[in-house]
């Protein structure tokens, strides 16, 4: 049966029918008793410059947050390893949120369990929950490793994961050899990127220490040819594929440390498994003897990077999300430098094609004023991309941008990047602000385009600015995460997305006399 025969109305069309409209009218009697005029005035005031000032002096309440909490990042990190079960120590709701959040973004199931702590655990500590939880989850989901992160609750009552896991072993719930990595991730500190970092570091250090392997960088089995690569809190499975393509073109051997693309881009074969892909556990200790580590989210992976250059004593190159031509150039130059291999001709050619595409589109991009919201590393990449295409970043909000790497703060790097270009002169970088701040900015100082996650859609709609969805989370569009945004190919994808949004706007808002076929 076809859709037309069925005539199913969804709630966008259904409730426009007269009888529902009438019903809504009738309901106004219950609403706060202020006149339509007052409502209109209040709305207008909320869009004014006067209100913007008040909004920016707001200290104590967050309105429409643009960050998630640490353990959410930890769950994503844990899913980057082979047959590893994310295990959240705390009350059960947190875990339900993480599963929904990640599943809604990737449109894939998220296996993750919780210790489901309740009031008695709040009083007596969560040890019994953790021990029971380990026993149950290992029996039910048969993981090869469990990766435990904490929540606010466990942190406030001060649960000691190390001793609890030890006690679980003593009680025989898990064997002495069974790998259980862990990290502490209270949500009242940091954000999802801090939690991602904590879990990656937790897993790397745990698997390395217990292996007994000594660190001799460059002495690995592949006689020093192998490269470690970390992508960080990565909402794009397509970025993993793109990176593999690039490394494959270089013909270098590599290990991706933390690869959740398998879990979040698995085929529909007719049988669901809990675990798809991921970094092999045995590869982790070996990674200590790799030639070097390349990190693609330097602010996100701060502690992991410190660990690698410290304990592993390994050469480390840390970049932000390699986006745009220059961003990708830096990536390729870095790989070439670390491995001693030349940049393959295939990539140079691809670069040329994408530069060509950028040239084709540049008349529609030049001078477009843009608002940006995202995580720090993504924003550095996006700012770079905007500047090289002639788009002008105006408002930049980074809720979790209070981070530094090697004592350079995100805000300072972003501002230096902007200051170095004539297209960056109008930009202001706001750290620690939320999407209600962004709403004021969009309404008071108009832009042509907003770039950010789905959460930004409310403010963008209020300000009548088209939104290009980039980053995390993207709940209301399908399959965006399958297309890479890094590398030359990713740059091309991003370009297409942006320029076609602009062209669509041109058509949508066209009065007719210049409704043209050729753009």
């Amino acid at each position, binding site marked *: *049966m076809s*859709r037309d025969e*069925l*005539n*199913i109305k969804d*709630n966008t069309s259904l*409730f426009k029918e007269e009888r*529902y409209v009438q*019903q*809504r009218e009738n*309901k106004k009697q*219950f*609403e*706060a008793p202020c006149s339509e005029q007052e409502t209109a005035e209040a709305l207008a005031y909320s869009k004014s410059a006067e209100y913007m000032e008040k909004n920016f002096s707001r200290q*104590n*309440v*967050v309105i*429409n*947050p643009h*960050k*998630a*909490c640490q353990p*959410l990042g930890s769950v994503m990190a844990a899913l980057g390893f082979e047959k590893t079960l994310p295990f959240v120590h*705390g*009350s*059960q*709701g*947190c875990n*339900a949120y993480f*599963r*929904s959040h990640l*599943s*809604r973004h990737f*449109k*894939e*199931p998220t*296996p993750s*369990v*919780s210790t*489901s*702590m*309740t*009031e008695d655990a709040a009083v007596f500590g969560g040890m019994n929950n953790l021990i029971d939880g380990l026993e*149950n*989850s*290992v029996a*039910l989901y048969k993981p090869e490793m469990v990766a435990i992160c904490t*929540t*606010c*609750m466990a942190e*406030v009552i001060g649960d000691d994961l190390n001793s609890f896991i030890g006690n679980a072993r003593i009680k025989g719930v898990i064997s002495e050899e069974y790998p259980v990595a862990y990290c502490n991730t*209270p*949500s*009242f*500190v940091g954000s999802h990127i801090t939690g991602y970092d904590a879990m990656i570091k937790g897993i790397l250090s745990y698997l390395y220490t217990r292996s007994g392997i000594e660190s001799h960088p460059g002495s690995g089995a592949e006689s020093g040819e192998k490269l470690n690569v970390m992508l960080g809190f990565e909402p794009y499975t397509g970025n993993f594929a793109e990176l593999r393509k690039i490394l494959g073109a270089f013909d270098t051997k590599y290990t991706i440390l933390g690869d959740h693309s398998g879990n979040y881009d698995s085929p529909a*074969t*007719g*049988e*669901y498994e*809990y675990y798809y892909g991921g970094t092999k556990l045995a590869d982790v200790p070996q990674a200590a003897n790799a030639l070097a580590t390349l990190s693609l989210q330097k602010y996100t992976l701060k502690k992991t990077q410190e660990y690698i250059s410290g304990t592993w004593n390994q050469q480390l190159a840390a970049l932000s999300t390699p986006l745009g031509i220059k961003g990708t150039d830096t990536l390729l130059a870095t790989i070439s430098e670390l491995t001693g291999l030349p940049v393959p001709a295939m990539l140079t050619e691809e670069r040329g094609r994408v530069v060509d595409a950028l040239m084709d589109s540049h008349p529609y991009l030049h001078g477009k004023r843009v608002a940006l919201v995202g995580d720090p590393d993504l924003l550095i990449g996006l700012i770079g991309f905007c500047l090289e295409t002639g788009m002008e970043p105006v408002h930049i909000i980074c809720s979790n941008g209070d981070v530094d790497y090697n004592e350079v703060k995100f805000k300072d790097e972003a501002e230096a990047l902007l200051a170095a270009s004539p297209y960056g002169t109008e930009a202001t970088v706001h750290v620690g602000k939320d999407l209600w701040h962004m709403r004021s900015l969009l309404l008071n100082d108009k832009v042509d385009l907003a770039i950010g996650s789905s959460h930004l859609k409310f403010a963008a709609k209020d300000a009548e600015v088209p939104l290009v969805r980039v980053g995390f989370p993207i709940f209301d569009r399908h399959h965006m995460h399958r297309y890479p945004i890094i590398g030359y190919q990713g740059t091309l994808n991003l370009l297409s997305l942006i320029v076609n949004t602009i062209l669509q706007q041109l058509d949508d808002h066209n009065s007719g006399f210049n409704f043209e076929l050729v753009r």
Partner: protein
Amino acid sequence: MDPLRQDEFDSQACGSIAPKAKPCPRPKPGEAVGGCSFDGAQITLLPIMDAAHLVHGPIACAGNSWESRGTLSSGPSLSQYGFATDLTDSDIIFGGEKKLKDSIDYIAGRFAPPAIFVYSTCVTALTGEDMDAVCKEAADRIGIPVIPVNSPGFVGSKNLGNRLAGDALLQYVIGTGEPEPETDLGVNLIGEYNIAGEMWDIEKLMNSAGIAVTSRITGDARYKEITWAHRARVNMVVCSRALLGLAKEMESRYGIPYFEGSFYGAKETTYSLRQMAYLMNDREMERRVDRLTEREEARLGQELRPYRKLLRGKRAVLYTGGVKSWSVISALKELGVQVVGVGTNKSTEDDVRRIADRVGDDTEYIPEGGASRIIKTVRERKADIMIAGGRNMYVAMKEQIPFIDINQERHKAYAGYEGLLRLAKELTYSLANPIWKLAASPAPWDKEAPPYDR
């Protein structure tokens, strides 16, 4: 909040029989389980659309949850805003009460809501903040109700949170206002959250029978209408697990009779409307209801005919929470769909009994979560379709099982007579999609049969 009250509370509100045999089950560590009490409390109260909802805690609880349920509003949208105090480590050490006070003041000053609901979280409950006192003091100062909702995540499951939210309504909201003298008093709808606009279908139906809705608790509600819920003549409990306790308490406090009902399926809908008229003790209304339900059922019978033909004998596994388990079974039965497996993890004893009344012996009960358990039932019982919520949807896709979403993320309203028609259409549509055939056939060069023959 009073600690460790859960068991006592369970025995009162978790179903009318044998609370010892099945109290609100405590979540089992190490399983993939559902939401927490904080989540549950928010779910119950967020559909009060014109109120502000402020989460007092670290960013997680608000940052992970705002604007993530499809509960629709016909007007105000303040409830869609994610307000949070965003506590950081220094607030944990030195206390977040000042921050809370300032946040309340800011929201009151800027958004002028009719009321502010303040939710405690694990952290603020553990650090022992006196949220009740801060709210009371703020309410006195700013002159609007500021309602503390003491439902931190760790006290238990989502269902318990629903009920704690009901408690907050009883303690702070219901009975604090009076309707206009000329208001036509009727029925409170309790535990109906207007997912995908279902409340609007129900309301339209009730209005056609001349039954007034007094308060919506809480689908598409306005704060004010809940303050006079105690003046209603009848309470209908749409989701029993969540807010049965509220109805019971209102019966003893205000003498309002209640009944448990559902709007899924024509039979249940007719029963619910009749029950309303009966409890209002109004013969004229009963006659009107009879005329309306007869007419609607006849019309529905006609319109359903082609779908019944297509759906007859189809087998479904239903995995959803509480009330929907039994009431959706009724709806499916009317369409000729056989329920071969049903989730009971969130059902009360009463709910389970209702399930048993509606399904044959050949139905498997799925007591606890875990995707593999549901999938196993689908396979073993050779089900044609899986009806569940968002967290299980993608597992069904991996297994190439036709699926429809019955939980909070759905975009189709299935309540009432028209809802049943919509459900029939959705089921047909989902089963008939060509993608299942495509998915079930191997690639042309791959001779191997697919793992599951359908």
